[in-house]
């Protein structure tokens, strides 16, 4: 399935796979899709998540301790693809687990599982030659991050290398919730827009309906991560899918945004 945003704004939901366990992640993922997530980012837990704030650090620690591996996340994607054929599925990882698995082997397995795209947090466009070759050969969409600090030259390269959508980071910093969205996000989307017609999703610190509504005025989609992972952390495994579904529906309980 190509990545598509049917809602305005679209919603990308990040989950740390294996937190609290893989079976629960699968149920949460299905509930999230049914509640209105257009795209799921299936996070691969890593021992050293240096771009993440405390919430996702703790989730990663739990998932690593529970033994969740990259191969399990690919398996999870396969189950989700068969359960919800229309959902966008992205594997979200640090580079080392992918590199250790083998780029070619990973891309083949992910494509066979029905994964749409791959986002590697610590992969920048300059280092991505071999990586892009393998993704392209497998028909996977490479998704790159754009930051408020990225130069024009870098934004152009990022836009050109990305498929599916471009992920615009709302602010300098690590993942985690914040009270208000800074003007950085809107400026970055405007700068990126010069270089691409792809959907632009804004993430980092997006945690409530006000943020999502505000983003809807200038971006195509919102990425919600830490706020969802925190919801899971606060719930028992049995309650987590329903809690996440409620949270996602709550993100949309605002007046509809006029189409751009």
């Amino acid at each position: 399935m190509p990545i598509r945003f049917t809602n305005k704004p679209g919603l990308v939901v990040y989950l740390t796979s294996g937190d609290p366990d893989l079976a629960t992640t699968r149920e949460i993922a299905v509930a999230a899709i049914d509640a209105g997530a257009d795209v799921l980012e299936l996070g691969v837990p890593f021992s050293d998540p240096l771009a993440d704030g405390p919430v996702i650090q703790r989730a990663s620690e739990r998932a690593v301790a529970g033994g969740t591996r990259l191969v399990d996340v690919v398996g999870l994607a396969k189950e989700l693809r068969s359960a919800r054929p229309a959902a966008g599925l992205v594997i979200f990882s640090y580079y080392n687990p992918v590199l250790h698995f083998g780029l070619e082997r990973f891309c083949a397995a992910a494509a066979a599982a029905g994964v749409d795209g791959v986002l590697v947090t610590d992969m920048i466009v300059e280092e991505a030659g071999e990586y892009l070759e393998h993704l392209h050969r497998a028909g996977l969409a490479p998704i790159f991050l754009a930051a408020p600090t990225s130069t024009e030259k870098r934004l152009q390269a990022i836009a050109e290398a990305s498929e599916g959508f471009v992920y615009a980071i709302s602010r300098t910093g690590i993942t985690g919730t914040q009270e208000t969205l800074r003007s950085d996000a809107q400026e970055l989307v405007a700068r990126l827009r010069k270089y691409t017609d792809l959907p632009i999703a804004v993430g980092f610190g997006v945690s409530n309906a006000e943020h999502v509504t505000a983003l809807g005025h200038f971006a195509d989609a919102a990425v919600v991560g830490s706020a969802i992972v925190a919801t899971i952390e606060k719930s028992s495994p049995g309650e987590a899918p329903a809690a996440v579904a409620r949270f996602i529906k709550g993100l949309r309980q605002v007046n509809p945004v006029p189409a751009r």
Partner: protein
Amino acid sequence: MATTKTEQTVSNTHMNMPGRFGAYGGRYVPETLMAALEELEQSYAEAQADPAFHAELDSLLADYAGRPTPLYLAKRLTEQLGGAKIYLKREDLLHTGAHKINNCLGQGLLARRMGKHRIIAETGAGQHGVATATVCALFGMDCVVYMGEEDMRRQELNVYRMRLLGAEVRGVSSGSKTLKDAINEAMRDWVTNVRTTHYLLGSVLGAHPYPTMVRDFHKVTGKELKRQILEKEGRLPTAIVACVGGGSNSIGAFYEFIPERQVRLIGVEAGGRGKALGSHAARFEGGSPGVLQGTYSYVLQDDAGQISLTHSVSAGLDYASIGPEHAALHDSGRAEYVSASDAAALDATVRLARTEGILPALGSAHAVAEAIRIAPTLSSHDILVVNLSGRGDKDMGILARELNLQGA
């Protein structure tokens, strides 16, 4: 091994890119940091071409840090071991007590050129943290040092020193609470405050340009050493021995000698208390190529690509990866890498203290241990130079416990 394949995959496209050492090195960082890395690379290139930068750095190295450091013939140790002649390159005599000051002065000057007045750093044994705090005091800059809580406990004296110098020391309680975790936290700070902050990374690790830049600031060690040994002996040494955590003191000692093929370069990793994953930090024995904290190098990892825990009696040698230039020197065979156990390092500490009256840092004691091991196997015509990268005052707490020393 599966890793051989990934290594080749990376090498095909990256061999000749800047910041690459063979297949190793590169930049694997969040996009937010790229502008800062590009700025740093640019500023460093400009500084390298600026005679005024070198003049100021050289003057600080001489008058503030105490360069050149002596090359000392360890006569009693040599006689006891009955083999190769052993010299010690006395980096332990530098201001703040270790080689780390070379790099801190260089990067401090660079930060000032870039107009960044907030400095962050990570530290393991605390020597880099102390050197950073010192340079920040000297230049009037704000200083935050991240340090694993386990290392704060082990190297408490250095925590006091940093705080006395005006630095804020932030304890890190994630993971193994050691150097790797301190780097993660420093990276998180940097990604958040990147517009105002310079990350003064303390070893030849991380994304380009750090491994190259930090090596350049330390290569003065090898240059002096070469001049000194030629003065004293009229020839080059048989081997240079240095401990390798991230690998800054060793690359500093080795670099000048890389083209001198007859000189053996021996890096000594932390053998810890055994061969099992988690009991040591011998990356070339127990690791495989991977990406950690911005660079592609040998990494201690499990079969899912998760980074392993490490152990060493020496805080700072217990890092799960190693500088990418060492990975290239290892693969090409130009340098040899061995390991010394906790016990061997402790024995070497006592031996050097009691034969020469010199107390080495526990990290540096790993290099002394290897020299003690190989000297008797060599002839009296052979010359071994040990890079004594730091002094052991900071380790007195550990030494008192490990050696059951009597106090008051």
